[in-house]
C-alpha cells in the first residue's frame, strides 16, 4: 500500500531521534568550511563540536558558506519513494532565504513526469527550528491518519501560526547574508541589547523590539508568548539556540513553569542554518494566533511588556 512521505530539506534542524520518532525524511544541503572543504549536512555534531564550530564561525564568518540540495539531489531523494508509488509532501526553508523551494519544485516536475504520484512542495516561510516544528506537526497529522490533501491544506492554512519568540543578539550574520527584512546596517555589536525577532510575511524575520539585557528580555518574551500562544498544554515547543545554551536552559525552565506544554525541547541549530544566523540565536518556537501582516499587533504587545520607559 502506498504511503504518504513527509520530507524536509536539511535546514529543518531535526535530529535523528525526532525524524525517526515522527517519520520524516530529510534532504541535506551542502556546507563549505574554511579552506574550501565541502561537506554534506549530517544534522549531527560528529564532524565538529558545536562550541568549536560557533567559536570559529564568529572568528571568520566569511569562510563559511551554505548551499541547498540541488535539483538532482532532491530528485534522487524523491525517486525511491515515487518508484514505490508513495505520495510526498516536501517542506522547504523559506523561499525568501534560500533556493531550496525552487529546486524542489523542479525536482517535483521531473518526478511527476515519470511517476504517477502526488507531490506537494510547501514553502514553510520559516527557517531552522520554526521550520522543523512545522514539519513535525505535518508528520504528526499524517500519523494521526490525515491524507495528502488534508495535510497540505492544514499546512497552507496554519503555517502563519508558527511563531518565533526570542532574540538574535548578533545581527551581523543575518544582515550580511540577507536573512533579515530591512537589514540595512545592523552590523554593529550590540552590547547586552537583545533584538527580539518574529517571523514576518516575507518569510524572514523582523525585529519588533529591543530589550536591555537578558532578564528584561525573558520577562517580556514570556508575556509575549502568553499573548500569542494557543492551547499551550497541547503544544510541542522548541527552543533553539545556536551558541546560547545556558540562556536557552533558563528560558526552557521559565516556559515549562508558566505554560506546562506537552513537550519542550532545546534544539541545536546545525551549520546549514547556523552559518547564516550566527552564534546569537536563542528563541522559542510554538503555534499561536496568526501573525498579523504588518506585525503591528505583535510590536504593540511586546513593547507593552518591554516598557521602554523614558
Amino acid at each position, binding site marked *: 500500500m502506498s504511503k504518504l512521505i513527509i520530507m524536509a530539506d536539511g535546514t529543518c534542524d531535526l535530529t535523528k531521534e525526532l525524524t525517526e520518532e515522527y517519520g520524516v525524511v530529510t534532504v541535506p544541503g551542502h556546507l563549505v568550511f574554511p579552506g574550501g572543504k565541502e561537506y554534506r549536512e549530517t544534522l549531527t555534531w560528529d564532524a565538529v563540536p558545536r562550541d568549536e564550530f560557533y567559536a570559529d564561525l564568529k572568528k571568520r564568518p566569511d569562510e563559511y558558506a551554505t548551499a541547498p540540495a540541488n535539483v538532482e539531489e532532491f530528485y534522487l531523494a524523491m525517486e525511491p519513494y515515487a518508484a514505490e508509488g508513495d505520495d510526498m509532501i516536501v517542506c522547504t526553508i523559506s523561499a525568501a532565504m534560500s533556493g531550496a523551494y525552487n529546486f524542489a519544485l523542479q525536482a517535483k516536475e521531473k518526478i511527476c513526469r515519470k511517476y504517477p504520484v502526488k507531490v506537494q512542495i510547501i514553502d514553510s516561510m520559516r527557517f531552522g527550528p520554526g521550520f522543523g516544528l512545522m514539519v513535525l506537526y505535518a508528520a504528526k497529522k499524517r500519523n494521526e491518519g490525515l491524507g495528502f490533501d488534508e495535510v497540505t491544506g492544514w499546512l497552507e492554512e496554519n503555517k502563519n501560526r508558527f511563531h518565533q519568540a526570542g532574540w538574535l543578539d548578533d545581527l551581523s550574520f543575518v544582515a550580511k547574508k540577507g536573512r533579515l527584512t530591512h*537589514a540595512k546596517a545592523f552590523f*554593529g*555589536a550590540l*552590547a547586552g541589547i537583545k533584538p527580539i525577532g518574529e517571523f514576518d510575511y516575507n518569510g524572514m524575520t523582523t525585529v519588533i523590539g529591543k530589550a536591555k*539585557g537578558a532578564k528584561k528580555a525573558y520577562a517580556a518574551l514570556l508575556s509575549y508568548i502568553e499573548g500569542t500562544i494557543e492551547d499551550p498544554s497541547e503544544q510541542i515547543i522548541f527552543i533553539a539556540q545556536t551558541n546560547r545554551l545556558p540562556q536557552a536552559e533558563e528560558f526552557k525552565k521559565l516556559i515549562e513553569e508558566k505554560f506546562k506544554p506537552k513537550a519542550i525541547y532545546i534544539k541545536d541549530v546545525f551549520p546549514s542554518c547556523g552559518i547564516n544566523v550566527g552564534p546569537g540565536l536563542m528563541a522559542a518556537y510554538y503555534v499561536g494566533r496568526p501573525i498579523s501582516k504588518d506585525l503591528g499587533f505583535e*510590536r504593540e504587545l511586546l513593547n507593552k511588556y518591554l516598557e521602554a520607559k523614558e
Partner: protein
Amino acid sequence: MSNIKINGVQLEKMLKNGLNNLLSHKDEVNKLNVFPVPDGDTGTNMSLTLSHGLNSAASRQEAGPYLKAVSDGMLLGARGNSGVILSQLFKGLYTELARAGVITPALFRNALIRAYKTAYASVVHPVEGTILTVAREGIEHIRTQVTRRTTIEEFLAMYAAEMRKSLSFTPELLPVLKESGVIDSGAYGYILIFEGMLDQLYGKLHQAQEPDEAVTMSASQPPIDASYFNENSAFEEGYCMEFILQLMKGEKYTQRFILKSYIEDLKLYGTSIVVVQDGRRIKVHIHTFIPAKIITLSQEFGEFLTFKLENMQLQHNEAFASAKGEKKALTVIAAVNGEGMEKVFRELGCDVVINSSGAANASTEDFIRALGAVNAEKVVVLPNNKNVVMAAEQAARLAEAKNVEVLPTKSPAEGYFAAAMDIQDSDDVEMRVKQMRAGMKSTVTLTESVATKDYENGVTSCKAGEEIVLVNGELTAASTDWCDCLINGLKAVPGIEDVESCVIFKGESASDEQEAILAGRLSECFPLLEATFVYGGQSVYRFIIGISE
C-alpha cells in the same frame, strides 16, 4: 590718542587683535580644566568660533552691519559649549548695535548688557561662576560710570578690569573650580578677547597666529560620489575655487598688489567673490567656469599656499539626487570624533555621521550642513559629547524649518546605547525616538586616562601622572595601575554585581594585550558581566566603558 567712538573698520582690527590675544593664550586656557583629564579645549573652541565669525565677515565702515556678519558667522561656527555661549554674547551685541554706524561708549555699554542677557536666555540652566557671570558683572558694576566724557579706551579698560575681578571670584561661586584650584576657562577666554581689543587701541598688537586646522577642514563632508558627473552631464554650475595666495617678492612677480583692482579683475572671470587680505596673504573664494584665468592672474603676484577646486555641477547633481530620494520618516545624525567611532556609529545604523576628527568638537555649522543634506520628516541628533550638546541645540534652533530633536547624549557610550536601542526598520517615529531615549537613559560612562594634575573632589583624590577613572565625569578611582583603576571604578557603580553587559571602546593608545588583560580581569571580578569590545580609536581615553541597564 583716545577714541570717543569706533567704526566697523576699527572694530574689525580690534576683534582681530582680540582673537590673536586669545590664540596666544590658547594652551593656557585649554589647561584650565576642572577635571584632571587632558581634554580641555575651551581655548581652541572659543578661538575657532571667533575666527569663523571674523573670516566670514567682509570689512565694512558701519559697525552694526559688520558686527552682524561676524555674529552670523560665529553662530554657525560655534564649537563647544563655550563657543556657543560666546556666539550668543555676540548675537546680543549686534542686536543692540544693528543700526549703529559707529559705537560710542554708551552704546557699547547697552550692547554689552544686551549681550549677557541674550547669553543667559540661551542657556537652559545658567550656571554662575562662568563666562555668564563675568560678562554680567563686568558691565553691571560699571554701567553707571559711563559718562559723556568716557572714551572707548577708558570704557574697555574698566570693563576688562571689572571682569578680571569677577573672574577671581569664580571659584567661590562654582565649587568644582575651587576643588580643582582653577578659574573658569570660558570666562578667562572672554576677557582675553576684550583685553586684546583694548590693546589694539593702545597700539599693542598681538602676533597673528594661525587658528587650528579645523577652521578650514571640512571633515564632516561625506566623500563626493563621482558617479553624478559623466561625459554626458551638463556643465552649468562651474567650479568653486578657494585658495590662499602668498604675495611674493622677486622679479617674477608684479610688485604692486592693489586689492581693489585685483577684485575688479576677478569679477571678469567669476561670481560669489570673497577676498580677505591678511598682511601679505590673500584668501580668495570665487565661483568660475575658467579657473585657468584666475590662476594666471593670481600668479602675477605670488604663489598658492593652499588651493581647492570643486566641481559644483557634481555637488549640484548629487544634492539633487539625494533631495529627490524618498523622504524618510526618521533620520539619525551622530557626531563623533575619529574614524573608529565613525565606523561604530555607521554600523549601528546612524544615517549621517559627522566626524570632526582631530581635537575639535563638531560645530554648529557642521550640524546645519548635515541637517541640510537630509530629507526626513524628523531628525534625531546624537551629539555624543557633553561639550557638543549646545552646538547641536543651536543648530536645531537655526534650522527651524526642520523637525529636529537633539537627544543630549553626553558621551559616546550614551550615544551607543541610544543608537543600539533604535529599531531602524520601523516607520513608527515616536516609538523609535522613545527607544533611543530609553537607550540613552541610565547609561553609566567610565573613562580611563592619565591625570594631568593633583586633584581631589571630597571622595577621591589623585596625583598628576596617576591613572584615573571618571564615572559620569566625576573622579571615582585613581591608581598607579590602569587596570586596577578601571576595576575599582566599576566596583563603585551601584548595582554593578547585577549588570549583565557592557560596551568597551578601545582607544588609540590601547593595545591588544591591554584589551586581553582587561577582559581577563573583568571575567575574574565580574563573572556575570559580558564585555563587548569595539574599536573607538579615541585619543584621550585608553578605554571608555558604557553600562546601560
